[in-house]
């Protein structure tokens, strides 16, 4: 049987004897006897390493991944340079705990400081935290930042946010007794700026996504102006991979930038672990939740990195802390930082440009099919777009027969398609043929 306990039976008995005990049971004498489990845990029998490997492979064959993928909607397949996972697997990093002991944790603390700098660079803002769980919880935390900074309980959010993000915000808002007001989208698929302006009275700010869930690039500058005009703040929820090509939150006046960092070098992994990033202006730095690394010196004057501004956090403020976050997604954050440093300024621009190019080609080809049309033809998009099609279910069923994952079917029957640098033009022709056939077959059935 597998055991990670190094001590042999003989050693254990000697250790027991040394502390004056006869058996392992003696160690648990504080536990009331009638509460104790009087049987072995009823779990599957232990497996050897080889058997475990077989078992996990058995689960994987129940999946059908690996075929062409045209789905994003919050999780994106991008190329992950080999160095990113390999460096993250340095066991000095991944088997470490939170860097509370700075002198023996400079590797992690400096990596974190570099991550914070990368996030500030991407977002054009002044300060970033060490990450939160994911994009959705980053949005929920941003809501609390808006509340704390403005001391108002009304928060506006754009209907263009990912529905999962909205759902998580609502759960947190119920607990915090916040008033959430949804700002609708116009018929062009972007946030109705006049509705932002009309609702700002008494609001702490607005949270809007760019690009939004439907792929549309938002008029963020106008949304920021409306928020500021109404004495509130803007928290921009951004896809970081777009920032090699699109304006940064800081460029259009956002006070907070948040988002899902998964596109930066993290695998799809069925939804996690990912990384929620958060950045803010200097004025809002102390409202950021969770850990932050800072630069200082030791007695000899060497540059040292250390966790700082800790008195904001739960282990010190306890019930007065604005967030309860302790463990975050540190290793994922470091991977995102490594990814950005591998790509550099030119790589970030090129990957963004490729996404734009591929998505536009795919959109063009799909819309050449009879019965397929772009829902927001006048609105610019990045790597996702919505099409309207007669029977989305039939399209995806036909694609699934070829192990292709088509666009995500929206509740209103539209399809949200995504193309990244991982999709080839050749794939597009192939996919379009299948879609065309599926729709023609259906046409015959009408």
């Amino acid at each position, binding site marked *: 049987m597998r055991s990670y306990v190094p001590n042999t039976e003989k050693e254990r008995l000697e250790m027991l004897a040394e502390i004056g005990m006869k058996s392992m049971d003696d160690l648990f004498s504080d536990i009331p006897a009638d509460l104790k489990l009087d049987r072995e845990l009823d779990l599957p029998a232990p497996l050897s390493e080889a058997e475990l490997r077989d078992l996990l492979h058995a689960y994987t064959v129940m999946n059908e991944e690996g075929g062409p993928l045209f789905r994003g909607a919050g999780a994106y397949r991008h190329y992950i340079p080999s160095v990113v996972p390999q460096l993250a697997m340095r066991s000095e990093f991944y088997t470490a705990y939170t860097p509370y002991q700075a002198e023996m944790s400079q590797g992690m603390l400096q990596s974190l400081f570099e991550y914070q700098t990368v996030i500030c660079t991407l977002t054009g803002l002044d300060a970033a935290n060490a990450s939160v769980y994911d994009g959705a919880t980053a949005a929920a935390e941003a809501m609390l930042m808006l509340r704390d900074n403005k001391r108002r309980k009304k928060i506006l959010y754009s209907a263009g946010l990912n529905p999962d993000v909205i759902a998580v915000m609502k759960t947190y808002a119920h607990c915090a007794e916040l008033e959430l007001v949804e700002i609708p989208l116009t018929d062009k698929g972007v946030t109705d700026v006049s509705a932002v302006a009309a609702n700002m009275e008494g609001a702490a700010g607005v949270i809007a996504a760019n690009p939004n869930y439907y792929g549309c690039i938002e008029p963020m500058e106008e949304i920021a102006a409306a928020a500021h005009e109404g004495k509130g703040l803007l928290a921009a929820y951004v896809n970081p991979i777009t920032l090699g090509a699109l304006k940064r939150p800081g460029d259009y006046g956002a006070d907070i930038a948040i988002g899902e960092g998964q596109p930066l070098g993290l695998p799809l992994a069925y939804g996690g672990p990912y990384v929620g990033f958060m950045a803010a202006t200097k004025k809002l730095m102390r409202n950021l939740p969770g850990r932050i690394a800072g630069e200082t010196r030791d007695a000899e004057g060497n540059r040292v990195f250390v966790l700082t501004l800790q008195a904001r956090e739960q282990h*010190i403020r306890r019930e007065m802390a604005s967030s309860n976050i302790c463990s975050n997604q540190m290793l994922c954050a470091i991977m995102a930082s490594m990814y950005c440093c591998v790509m550099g300024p030119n790589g970030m621009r090129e990957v963004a440009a490729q996404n734009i190019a591929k998505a536009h080609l795919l959109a063009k080809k799909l819309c050449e099919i009879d019965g397929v049309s772009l829902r927001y033809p006048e609105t610019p998009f990045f790597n996702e777009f919505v099409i309207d099609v007669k029977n989305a279910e039939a399209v995806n069923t036909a694609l699934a027969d070829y192990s292709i994952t088509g666009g995500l079917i929206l509740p209103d029957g539209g399809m949200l398609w995504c193309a990244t640098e991982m999709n080839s033009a050749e794939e597009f022709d192939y996919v379009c043929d299948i879609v065309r056939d599926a729709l023609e077959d259906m046409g015959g059935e009408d």
Partner: protein
Amino acid sequence: MVPNDRKYTRDHEWVMVEGSVAKMGITAHAAEALGDIVYVELPVVDDEVTMGESYCVVESVKASSSVFSAVTGKVVEINEELDGAPEKLNEDAFENFIAAVEFTEIADDLMDAEEYEKFCEEE
């Protein structure tokens, strides 16, 4: 030395009344107990404060401490210098007020300097 131009609370805050306005701060004893003060979370002008309730948080590296108001009223002035230089509270806690409040009610159990010194000794 505890100045005798003002009154003191049992939570180691001082309050100096000038007409209808009360200037408030923390005592040197409190500042010393906190250690190196790294941040003062100041109230905002026009904030309503309530006697016995927290109106400010003072942070050291490894602790945060609420500062309680000796009066009920509205904040009319804050010491913005503390925002960039929280160490002033360590240097001279009595010279550096935190906030001034136009008050309607003031605690009736405040101590004078002599009583406060005795209180600190006994504590």
